[in-house]
């Protein structure tokens, strides 16, 4: 199984209308090379699942500015004015999800769960249209799993089987998204030989990772 591919090969798997999860938190750190290649290719009508839309000139934010996203499932858009503008203009459909619920919905997608029951969002607009389930006298929202066609994630150190170590605060949604997409592509700061990552310190096992591309540095 050859997992190491070029950016072109990676981007050729991504087509108009797909649902894509992208790791990162306020651009720290998005898969920058793959995003730039997506912009160059110009795929459109994408459903994007990501914590936020970063900044207009950084990472994921650029896909918004370039109007390649049709639908967005996210927890926060405040750092990218263009996202709000497109939402208000009716050009971009936005589903706002509490950050913890977003993480748990992605994990549920990866874990084969039919959903999770969370108290977050009760009594707010978040509960609109959702089932409320009572468990032992307490109310919870039933939040459904999320899955995607492709997950684009970032790793610091990745071995050729796809085992990943993340660096510091860049872990965020990456390990979750790696479990919840049909095809998972990791952009690696550093690609190492199999065996160079201690089995105790693997953060995403290589069985979740389909392809590896080299990172910006």
């Amino acid at each position: 199984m050859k997992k190491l591919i070029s950016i072109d090969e990676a981007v050729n798997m991504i087509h108009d209308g797909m649902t894509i999860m992208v790791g990162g938190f306020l651009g720290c750190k998005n898969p920058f090379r793959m995003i730039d290649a997506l912009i160059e290719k110009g795929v459109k009508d994408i459903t994007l699942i990501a914590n936020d839309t970063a900044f207009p000139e950084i990472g994921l934010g650029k896909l918004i500015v370039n109007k390649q996203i049709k639908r967005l499932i996210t927890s926060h858009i405040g750092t990218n004015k263009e996202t709000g503008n497109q939402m208000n203009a009716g050009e971009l459909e936005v589903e706002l999800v509490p950050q913890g619920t977003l993480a748990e919905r992605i994990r549920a997608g990866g874990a084969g769960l039919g959903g999770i029951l969370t108290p977050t969002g009760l009594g707010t607009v978040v509960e609109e249209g959702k089932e409320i389930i009572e468990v032992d006298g307490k109310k919870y929202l039933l939040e459904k799993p999320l899955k995607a066609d492709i997950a684009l994630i970032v790793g610091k150190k990745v071995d050729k089987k796809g085992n990943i170590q993340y660096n510091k605060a860049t872990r965020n949604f990456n390990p979750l998204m790696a479990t919840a997409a049909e095809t998972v592509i990791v952009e690696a700061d550093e690609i190492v030989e199999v065996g160079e990552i201690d089995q105790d310190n693997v953060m995403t096992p290589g069985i979740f990772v389909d392809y590896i591309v080299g990172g910006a540095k």
Partner: protein
Amino acid sequence: MDKNAIRNFIAKRVAQELKDGDVVNLGIGLPTFVANFIPEGIDITLQSENGFVGMGPAPAEGEEDCDMVNAGGQHVTILPGGAFFDSAESFLIIRGGHVDVTVLGALEVDEKGNLANWMVPGKMVPGMGGAMDLVTGAKKVIIAMNHTAKGNHKILKKCRLPLTAMECVDLIVTEMGVMEVTDKGLLLKEINPEFTVEDIQNATEAELIIPDDLKKMAV
């Protein structure tokens, strides 16, 4: 007091609420400054919802690491004894009640402890980020804010803006006083001696309960 003095006054009073060993999550803006006033001799662990505990101060200039930011996207550091984790574990910590105290700002808060701090329909819809989980899950929710906004009440009988969560607030700290959310309503526990009870009631839409042993804010 000028703007900075008010901010520091509130942050310093909030810091007095923290106890040795507490895990604390500070929202962006004013709450961030609470970290500057943590009392001597108590050990606080700061949680950052993008994925770590043990948050330290901003790095020295030139030592910023682009893989190391807080939930507001600012460069920070991590202390020895800290730990990184993913977003699911970060919110397991938050939702699961493993954060002892969260300090957040508010647009509105009401006498039942309802909180609105994430959107103004038609004007500002940034998204809730981690706020809904934080105020639902943290053991103690402290609102740290200016008592009014451009003369308008922020402490209301009933929130008018879309809620962040229902009945979640435990304590409100402003430059005028400290109010606790109780079953009977808002209990004024401390007052800034620069103001009278009448001043603070006039600046508050909700009716304040004034106890016999009303204390002075000592900051």
